[in-house]
């Protein structure tokens, strides 16, 4: 059976450039993950910060 020339040209077009092949190539570029962070100094800074901040602000208030 013979195909219509137009139809055939269209088929060939998609043969030359299968879009799926191109899809395989186009790396989608994702943004980086964000991880939650902890620090061994967190605990200490919280322990000591309170008094430190207090003394600084009270000094400033005294001035």
């Amino acid at each position: 059976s013979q195909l219509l020339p137009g139809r055939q040209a269209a088929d060939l077009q998609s043969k030359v450039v299968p879009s799926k092949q191109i899809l395989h190539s186009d790396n989608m570029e994702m943004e980086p993950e964000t991880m939650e962070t902890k620090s061994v100094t967190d605990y200490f800074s919280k322990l000591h910060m309170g008094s430190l901040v207090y003394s600084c602000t009270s000094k400033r208030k005294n001035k």
Partner: protein
Amino acid sequence: RMEASCLELALEGERLCKAGDCRAGVSFFEAAVQVGTEDLKTLSAIYSQLGNAYFYLHEYAKALEYHHHDLTLARTIGDLLGEAKASGNLGNTLKVLGNFEEAIVCCQRHLDISRELNDKVGEARALYNLGNVYHSKGKNVASAGTHDPGELPDDVKNALQKAANYYEENLTIVTELGDRAAQGRAFGNLGNTHYLLGNFRSAVLAHEQRLLIAKEFGDRSAERRAYSNLGNAHIFLGEFETASEYYKRTLQLARQLKDRAVEAQACYSLGNTYTLLQDYEKAIDYHLKHLVIAQELNDKIGEGRACWSLGNAYTALGNHDQAMHFAERHLEISREVGDKSGELTARLNVSDLQMVLGLSYSTNTSMMSESHMVDKTLNGTRPRVGRRHSMENMELMKLTPEKVQNWN
């Protein structure tokens, strides 16, 4: 004395990780764990950082182990914020490992605690993580089949839609908080989600926002990502000229950033784009650039892909000798890497080209004129035929293999 020494080791580990030397950081953290401490909050921080260091080193099984230790510990000492953080990190790690259902549970826990503590920053970050898990889940299922973006099974569509919703929710909060960097990340991934869903206009809008923010920060890697994603979206909008402009910006930045793999990818995308524009000379130019880098990086799969593309482009130009050269090379590489479908494609291409080359040497074209289409194309001994005609010849022969055999 022991207490101080564990802390000292951990502090050195922190310093090294912050300086970007995760490998050395890991040894100090592990030494700190060996020494041990009775302060469970310190231990929790060490486990957490070990988990993150292994995550960045792409050793996900180890990352999972330590984030799991951290979670257990945080729960034991009733540290709710610590539990939220450990859950989030565990969720991210499970996502990378492809365990999406457990990842969702963990990220949801991160979200729930953050809301309970009225921690807006934590809430936003949990929403972003959840978006990422659903995006990966959707993409993972989608890649099992070969779908173009936009034509998706329902479960994939559902997952991607959820991802989009989480990114939108995240954007609302980080916009309120005025956190531009977080907005940039959310826009980038939202854009990619719209792209997979086939909402290419929305994808473009999101990536344009991402680009704007990347420029604000002078973040050239993010800028390059945005160009590349904008190129991809414009391809599916059928706006190939625009896509080629974005890919060129990607290529420019890849070269500035001295990232050869990304440079190769940009060349490949440009080769494909010029194929779509039917400018085969330019397509060949870029595919050759891609080929050179793929060989340099010893990327066999990329090399095979380049040969396949070059074979197609040369066929399109009617340069069947060159086409044959690359089709044969593609066949060779497919065998080498054990790519069965590539091998089959290459075999078909080679046999098609053998026929075209065989026929073009022949001066007897009388039987070809029966097909009405090709009589003008094969009238020389080695005609340099136009692309469409040469391809039509090939297709005709494919359609009627038994006839071809009779001719010989």
